[in-house]
């Protein structure tokens, strides 16, 4: 059961990744649920969203900031991952030997 779930998730991941990269070439904009749900209902109910106070959605700046955020988040996660699962895993063994 678990194996089939993992296989299914892997397929889903691959499929969504493939669509994500393919989609950018054919159709640059894929609406998010903020537009299709949050924005749509907010507008229908008479309270549309306004521009952010700090509007970084200017040209490619937002894309750059997302790439930067991804890199920073990935670095922090990787750094602590190493600390916990690589260095941290060796630590108890060293203590045991002592």
């Amino acid at each position, binding site marked *: 059961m678990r*194996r089939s*779930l*993992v*296989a299914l*998730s*892997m397929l*889903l*991941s*691959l*499929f*969504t*990744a493939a*669509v*994500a990269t393919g*989609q*950018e070439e054919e159709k640059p904009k*894929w*609406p*998010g*649920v*903020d*537009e*299709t*749900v*949050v*924005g*749509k*209902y*907010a507008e229908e*109910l*008479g*309270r*549309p*969203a*306004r*521009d*952010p*106070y*700090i*509007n*970084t*959605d200017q040209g490619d700046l*937002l*894309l750059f*900031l*997302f790439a930067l*955020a*991804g890199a920073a*988040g*990935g670095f*922090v*996660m990787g*750094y*602590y991952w190493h*600390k*916990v*699962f690589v260095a*941290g*895993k060796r630590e*108890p063994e060293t203590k045991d030997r002592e």
Partner: protein
Amino acid sequence: MTKLRNFLPLCAGLLLIPRPAHAMHISEGILPPGWAIFWFVMAAPFVAWGVRQITQRKQADPSYIPLIGIFGAAVFVFSCFPIPVPVAGSTAHPAGTGMAAIFLGPFASVVVAFISLLLQALFLAHGGLTTLGGNTFSMGVMGSFSGYGAFRLGRLLRLNLFWSAFLAGVTADLVTYFGTSLEMSLALHGTQPFLSVLAQIFLAFMPTQIPLSILEGAVTGGMIVYVQKHRPDILRKLKVLGEVAK
């Protein structure tokens, strides 16, 4: 297990597709001032208690700090990178708070969600400063506590670790979006029946969110199985696996 090990980096790789987020956070200006303040007031005690708990726990156990680093960064990355859902033709993102609540505790997970949402509102034009309280309440408070509750319920029902965490991931994700729908419908239903507006908004999220919540459940389940295999002492400390080893 090898498949699980391969699966985690694959999911992490997905997160590196740099595309601006279009997701569930309530955008700037949507909540009227009264409701915006109300949700700030509702979220503030959870954030304050979470900060207190983090301070106490890191003093008692320094190994708690790297866990905050991992799961804090995970919540930030999860909650701002959109994943396309082909069946719905739109993108959305997981919350990550179910996983953070299991490993950090639900109050600490609220703090992590608050900081992530603040950074996103400040630099990524994602969410908003006036809606920060509302977004913190839906993703941080509702997501973390429902995810943690689902995990504990799963353990009480004697589900194994994977399925308990799977349940936590799915629940946290769906409850977060329920929270967003609730906040919007409470503030904006006007003369329309509240329940009808709530149902409309929540159901509109579902085609995108059901597949994503399953993915989030699988990632949460995979993560806990990974930790069980590589650092079972962490789960013992968190009292997920029996007592603390002496």
